[in-house]
């Protein structure tokens, strides 16, 4: 049951072969059993069981939606009234939101069962889920390793079969990279497709919420619920609703797959390269056409990202001042001292460092040289994609240059950690959608992620191409070693 797809679970629920209460209980038991992985910040057993009961009643009345009765976990950056919303930070350790995020509302309306809030890098700043006030999350394939980040708790919870689906957010790769490291599927939608109302802001020109699931078909069902216009988010896009599952039956014959040489250069682990190239050959074998494309400015993506994201973060996180919500220092001499101590105590090392970098690149005398320059190079990166998509339908490459690394191994040098984002930062900079699916294992037995990137609003196409691959392979069905069924 816990390894079943959403389609199978939905049919079983509809046919009353299982109840949502049974399914929810099974998830809660498994979450309890694997607490040592530290993938959840809060679990709401009573709330989940009550919601499951309600979902069963709804199905009995014949009012069920495809996801009614399905347990879900939210990244702890999405505001929920049912549980705290900590963002993995001491600053929000006791923050209980007075309202639900748009995504939370939509999933609740569809009848999903919220079981808990997932661990994450503090304020989504990180690629390992080590930078959490609540301790590092662990990878279910090998608990000495990170699950990736910042949505590491969400991705690893789906990988460990603790929940069938989860939400994440992606600013520079925070859905796709942990999906790759944990061996699950994750999609960063087009900027503006999913409302950010109630999503705690990190870098507003980049942030986007998206689905994490075991298969591409499941991503489609979850995105169908998450996506949609919301007047409360000024960047939400007004467009007709679409069915993200509509390309599932399509084959990949004639699909033009762009292969940028920049995504296959040095610095990629051999095991990653081998798995990704094999996946490319599979697509070619199915009649897809390989097109060599260039993304000449993509190697600058990490540098551009680590100017723009901290700049926007330094502005967004100025709201945490000990006045309206969150932590306030206990001892201080005056207002200025209260601000400075509150923020020193409430934020962790990585968050403070990014705020300082952001403050620097926005400060008088440096704005043009750093922030404005980064925005110009961002335009060049976006143009590269626009040029490439004139010649191809999707761009294929590795999600990350490596598989999961050891907890603590990149702690001393932030730049080493940042370089892991080299293939994921470009899509949010250009605003285009991208997904990661499992495409094999390296020689250490760790999952490798395949990234497919497409033009704006091509989610259904990406999901269709990924689904085709998953019908011929079973990488996405493998259960991690630390959490056997």
């Amino acid at each position, binding site marked *: 049951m816990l390894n079943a797809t959403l389609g199978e679970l939905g049919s079983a629920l509809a046919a009353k072969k299982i109840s949502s209460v049974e399914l929810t209980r099974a998830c809660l038991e498994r979450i309890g059993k694997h607490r040592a992985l530290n993938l959840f910040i809060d679990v709401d057993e009573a709330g989940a069981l009550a919601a499951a009961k309600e979902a069963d009643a709804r199905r009995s009345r014949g009012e069920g939606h495809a996801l009614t009765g399905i347990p879900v976990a939210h990244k702890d950056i999405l505001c929920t009234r049912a549980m705290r919303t900590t963002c993995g930070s001491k600053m929000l350790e006791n923050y209980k*939101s007075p309202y639900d995020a748009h995504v939370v509302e939509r999933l609740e309306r569809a009848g999903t069962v919220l079981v808990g809030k997932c661990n994450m890098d503090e304020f989504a700043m990180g690629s390992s889920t080590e930078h959490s006030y609540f301790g590092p999350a662990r990878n279910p394939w090998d608990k000495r390793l990170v699950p990736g980040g910042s949505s590491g708790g969400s991705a690893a919870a789906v990988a460990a079969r603790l929940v069938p689906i989860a939400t994440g957010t992606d600013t520079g790769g925070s859905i796709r990279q942990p999906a790759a490291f944990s061996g699950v599927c994750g999609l960063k939608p087009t900027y503006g497709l999913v409302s950010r109302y109630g999503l705690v802001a990190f870098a507003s020109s980049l942030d986007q919420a998206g689905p994490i699931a075991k298969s591409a078909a499941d991503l489609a069902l979850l995105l169908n619920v998450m996506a949609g216009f919301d*007047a409360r988010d000024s960047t939400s896009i007004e467009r007709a609703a679409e069915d993200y599952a509509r390309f599932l039956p399509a084959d990949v014959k004639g699909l033009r797959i762009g292969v940028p040489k920049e995504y296959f250069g040095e610095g990629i682990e051999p095991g990653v390269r081998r798995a990704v190239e094999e996946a490319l050959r599979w697509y070619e074998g199915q009649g897809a056409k390989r097109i060599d494309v260039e993304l000449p400015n993509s190697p600058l993506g990490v540098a551009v990202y680590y100017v723009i994201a901290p700049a926007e973060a330094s502005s967004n996180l100025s709201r945490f001042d000990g006045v309206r919500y969150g932590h306030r220092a206990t001892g201080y001499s005056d207002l*200025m001292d209260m601000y400075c101590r509150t923020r020193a105590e409430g934020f962790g090392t990585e968050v403070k460092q990014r705020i300082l970098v952001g403050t620097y690149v926005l400060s008088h005398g440096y704005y043009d040289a750093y922030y404005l320059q980064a925005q110009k190079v961002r335009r060049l990166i976006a143009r590269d994609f626009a040029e490439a998509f004139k010649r191809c339908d999707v761009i294929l490459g590795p999600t990350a240059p490596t598989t999961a690394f050891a907890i603590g191994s990149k702690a001393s040098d932030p730049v080493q950690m940042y370089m892991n984002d080299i293939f994921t930062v470009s899509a949010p900079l250009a605003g285009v959608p991208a997904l990661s699916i499992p495409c094999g294992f390296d020689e250490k037995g760790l999952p490798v992620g395949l990234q497919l990137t497409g033009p704006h609003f091509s989610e259904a196409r990406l999901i269709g191409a990924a689904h085709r691959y998953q019908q011929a392979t079973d990488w996405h069905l493998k259960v991690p070693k630390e959490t056997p069924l």
Partner: protein
Amino acid sequence: MSLTPDDVRRLARLARIAIDPEESGAVLDRLNRVLGLIEEMRKVDTQGIEPMAHALDLVQRLRSDDVREANQRDAYQSVAPAVDEGLYLVPKVIE
């Protein structure tokens, strides 16, 4: 270019973050590593390139100018560290 301990003090003040003197060396080292990484972006010729502030070229939506929101002050202040009669309390700023 590299930052100095004075720069870090100035930035910390601007960012309203207190930094202990004993951690300032480590902070300086990490900041300089990050600035080293972003340095490569500065060399790119971007003459005539329009800065890209947003991922999509969107215009701000407008709505009719009428009252729509309910007053939720009590709900929003329920999460504040210190409030009194609907006001947020902060340390005294005027003697």
